[in-house]
């Protein structure tokens, strides 16, 4: 296992109205991107409870990307403003308990920014690949594994 080249697992929470559509545009425009990111579509960035992000790390994600509409472009007018204020707290909380908050990425990508989406995803994947795997939770997951006889 250790000799295998490390391929990061990225979970991307994207909002239905901007980033998901933007990622869709990147696909229909045949733009090349790396495929390590698993997209999870949510109605709005305001819908993203920080517990989702913790769950993603628990389930073995090496990095998490959260992306939504630019400020003032939110489909629900204020969802991303509420989300942004939450993240200011959540990032520093993660840092404080020892989950490097540089594994958590945020971006605003609109529905027309297919190219920006590709750049963001590639950038995230490359920088997580440099950081290496996130081992904190992997160690804890072993603790509760039931040994197979």
């Amino acid at each position, binding site marked *: 296992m250790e000799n295998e080249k490390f391929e990061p697992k990225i979970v991307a929470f994207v909002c239905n109205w901007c980033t998901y559509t933007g990622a869709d545009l990147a696909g229909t425009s045949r733009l090349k991107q790396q495929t390590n990111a698993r997209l999870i579509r949510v109605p709005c960035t305001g819908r993203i409870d920080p517990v989702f992000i913790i769950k993603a790390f628990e389930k073995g994600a090496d990095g998490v990307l959260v992306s939504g509409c630019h400020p*003032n472009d939110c489909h629900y007018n204020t969802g991303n*403003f509420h989300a*942004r204020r939450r993240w200011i*707290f959540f990032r*520093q*909380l993660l840092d*404080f308990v020892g989950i*490097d908050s540089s594994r958590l990425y945020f971006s605003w990508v609109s529905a027309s920014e297919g190219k920006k989406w590709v750049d*963001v995803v590639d950038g995230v994947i490359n920088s997580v690949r440099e950081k290496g795997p996130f081992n904190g*939770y992997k160690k804890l997951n072993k603790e509760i594994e039931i040994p197979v006889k």
Partner: protein
Amino acid sequence: MKQLIDISKELFESKQVGYIIGYAEDKFKRVKPFVAYSSLDTERFVFNNNSVNNLAVYLTRLPKAKEGKIGIVAKGCDIKSIIALIQENQIKRDDVIIIGVNCNSVVNQIDEQFSKENTAIKCKYCQVRTPAHYDYLVGEIKEVELPEDKNFAIMQKLDSMSAEEKWNFWEAEFEKCVKCYACRQVCPLCYCEQCIVDKSMPRWIDSSATTKGNFAWNMIRAFHLSGRCIGCNECERACPAEIPLSLLNRKMGMVAINEFNYRHGTDINQPTLIGNYNVNDKEDFIM
């Protein structure tokens, strides 16, 4: 505490209150929360260095008074949580009568004698020994010597650690958690009808006491209290595993002060931090 008993009696006799939440000694001379339902009960009220409990927690837990308002005996820090509850629309200002008490700091370990060493750490930086908000005020301020702030040293040490070292520190702490939820039950601001940890479809937080689930629970609790915790440190006092929960809450409180210059529970009319937004919030971390 004749002043306190007189005021409570008067409140009952003028039928202003249905009950008054306060402190009383039990038969072992231990100070405990006590609810007085008649002016006779108020004879038992006491307030001293052993009155550690934050009684604001009962405002959302006890049934409403049949007639009249709810009276509450509260120290400065407890009054901050009462104000926080009013700010968050959990109680109405007109429904409570606050009997503020001048506090001369409280003990850390309940069964030991009050002394400089045995003083709660939260008292070190207390700015509300005389409460900021009250209907009646009783008691006198005395000069007290305060202990070293041990937690601040731990926080500074944590801030200088690498992510992995911090993770190991918290892993050793959270390993001890037995998921008794005493921190939640004792917290005046944990008033959700259904806590996220009790939700089972889907189950977001592992309910078994594994280190993994403990991480999620304690992180999410700290997050739900970020910008809201008023620092009464009741969670840490109630914790049977002695996890330094106040570090997490204090860190989040510092973020609220540094980023937004906001202190929860200081002004009844101030809008809450989480639940509101500003178009100009900082976003230097967003690509």
